[in-house]
């Protein structure tokens, strides 16, 4: 089963607004990574947050991690039309059977209207 589940599945906002996407996972993790995929192309690595970190920033991106709730959020501030893409969270399968394999959530499709 998928390690990460994302919410919402689809999000449509106006340019300039903020977009928040959430990811929940099931087992303990070493870190959590967020990726962007434009229109069926390859994945672009956005940010990695480690299990001992609570918040991380990169430009207009802010990622939070709550290990007690097994959840993470990705906030994109002042969105632009170019942010239109699918966003995925991914974690390494955790627990006693940690194999180091990166497992993806279902993704959130973000549309930013100009």
């Amino acid at each position, binding site marked *: 089963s*998928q390690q990460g589940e994302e919410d919402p599945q689809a999000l449509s906002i106006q340019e300039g607004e903020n977009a928040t996407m959430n990811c929940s996972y099931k087992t303990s993790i070493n870190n959590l990574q967020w990726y962007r995929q434009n229109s*069926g*192309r390859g*994945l*672009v*690595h956005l940010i990695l947050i480690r299990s001992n970190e609570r918040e991380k920033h990169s430009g207009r991106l802010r990622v939070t991690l709550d290990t007690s709730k097994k959840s993470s959020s990705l906030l994109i501030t002042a969105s632009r039309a170019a942010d239109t893409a699918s966003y*995925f969270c991914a974690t390494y399968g955790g627990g006693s059977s940690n194999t180091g*394999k*990166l497992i993806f959530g279902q993704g959130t499709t973000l549309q930013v209207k100009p």
Partner: protein
Amino acid sequence: SAVISQKPSRDICQRGTSLTIQCQVDSQVTMMFWYRQQPGQSLTLIATANQGSEATYESGFVIDKFPISRPNLTFSTLTVSNMSPEDSSIYLCSARPGKYNEQFFGPGTRLTVL
């Protein structure tokens, strides 16, 4: 970071034929992987490509259908054998330097089987 290239970027193939996808990383990496992304879906791990030994396949994927080679620390190939329309997907090569580092992806190979 690692820069990953894939060839071909896309192909249209006839049922029953095979296609080999090449993946080249710009630096030596410990781990390489192959993923499949079916239309409108998230990424599913096919196998871990092991340098100098047989690949490790995930449940639902077998070597006869998806033979993988990894002759060195920067190169791998995935063959999709005896193709059917159900194999129409994006195939993505992925790599990371160590067990829990950032994982990077190639641009993908978009395969259409007629």
